[in-house]
């Protein structure tokens, strides 16, 4: 099996997939790309539908035996299936359901909010000539919005509320656990990937939450995460953001 991972700075979806790859001990060629400059859209497989139409926004791409694959949570599930390392999802079907549901709520509510706040504070800069190469028109529109600096105060306030709620859910969940699903799992990776960079941006959401503070430290110190973080090329990867999933259009 030949695996190549095209990833950006170890934050958000790139962090999840890099850490999953290391935790599962899957041999892979790593290729750093400038996700925050839109470099993904210049790769040879960028127009493949399952890359071009990924609704994750600017996430990493894993190429396994020639098939380009996107979407960090499902890439982590894939790596969990194929790699020899310790399992990244619980064995019990109900605990697995809880892991998938947790990730789904993160993807749907937390990730768009975090990407909105992250991009507002640290705007990504699209490279010249890339906009026209973005096949997904709604992703292109999100890039145009960010380039024009058009987040409304209402959007930012709603995003901060969603980060508050995610921090509360996480704090509550950690009441009797070290890791969100019992053992270290994809839920820890994906939660950390979106929330760690929110601590400096929405500090009040994390204030007086000792369990989440200790958990953030624990995740950061996990060998697979520490190794993923060592691939950073900027001084502060938590300040590296690119376009995320869209905020729910309705309902």
């Amino acid at each position: 099996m030949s695996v190549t991972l095209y990833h950006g700075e170890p934050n958000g979806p790139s962090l999840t997939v890099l850490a999953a790859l290391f935790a599962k001990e899957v041999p892979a060629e790593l290729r750093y790309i400038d996700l925050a400059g839109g470099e993904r859209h210049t790769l040879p497989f960028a127009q493949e539908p399952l890359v071009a139409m990924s609704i994750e926004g600017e996430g990493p791409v894993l190429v396994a035996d020639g098939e380009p694959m996107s979407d960090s949570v499902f890439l982590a599930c894939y790596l969990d299936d194929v790699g020899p390392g310790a399992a990244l999802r619980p064995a019990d079907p109900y605990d697995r359901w809880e892991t998938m549901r947790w990730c789904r709520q993160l993807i749907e509510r937390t990730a768009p909010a975090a990407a909105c706040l992250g991009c507002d504070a640290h705007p990504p800069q699209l490279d010249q000539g890339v906009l026209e190469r973005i096949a997904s028109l709604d992703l292109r529109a999100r890039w145009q919005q960010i380039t024009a600096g058009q987040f409304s105060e209402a959007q930012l306030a709603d995003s901060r509320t969603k980060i508050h709620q995610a921090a509360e859910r996480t704090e509550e969940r950690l009441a009797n656990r070290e890791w969100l699903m019992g053992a270290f799992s994809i839920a820890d990776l994906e939660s950390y990937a979106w929330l760690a960079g929110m601590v400096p941006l929405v500090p009040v959401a994390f204030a007086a939450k000792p369990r989440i503070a200790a958990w953030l430290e624990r995740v950061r110190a996990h060998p697979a995460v520490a190794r993923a973080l060592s691939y950073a090329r900027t001084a502060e990867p938590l300040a590296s953001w690119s376009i995320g999933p869209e905020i729910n259009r309705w309902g």
Partner: protein
Amino acid sequence: MHSVTLYHWEPNANSGKPMLALMEKGVAFHSHYVDMLSFDQHKPDYLAVNPQGTIPTMVHGERVLTESTAIMEYVDDTFGGPKLMPDDARERWRIRWWMKFMDQWLGPSFSMIGWKVFVGPAVRDRDPAELQAAIDRIPLPERRVAWRKAISGEFGAEELQESQRRVALGIRLLEQELARRPWLASDQYSLADINGFNLAYALPLAQPALSNDELTPNIMRWLRAIYARPATRACWALGRTSLVKRVTILEQPHIGAGQVA
């Protein structure tokens, strides 16, 4: 073996996913019909089961499960019967990719149009005070907005146009994918097909200018193949509304362009 109770609305969209998955697996379950058009899902009896007031909910012994796609994976992992996820890891990834694409991108666009033409008109004529009270009881703020818009017909031209753009593009992508493989995302019948059928079973009626035997032969082959399965027949027979009875369009052997008004 613990008993299974499924709280569901029609075999359509989210409710139909675990219904059909359970029936394909041959799992007997107690069916508890939640009448969405009477707002049963926001009444105390149901909120006691699922405080978020979303449909469906599955109760298996002491376990309470929500989120229809995650429930389907649980059903496949837990019960015997035919496997609805392939062994190949890359196929499983592809199935999950498609389910997310349908759940979070294509489905909401279909459903905005569906709520405008079916759900809104179905409840709109009731007593305004009763409707307002029903909306006020909805636990999730996003769902409150959705219901308010559906009831008052407030969807803007621009957002409907964007939904229609996504539906047209989604149909093209589905057709391309189904030209490559017998089933959606995989060489075997899977959760992606169950998910997709719930979204698209009435496609040639809902989008006659975009989907028929001439424009999308692979989608039509795929829909008819799923409809031919005994579990699908049994599942859709539980439908009570005109919305779901549209599935019989698939009994027509050929639907040409311009044939469905």
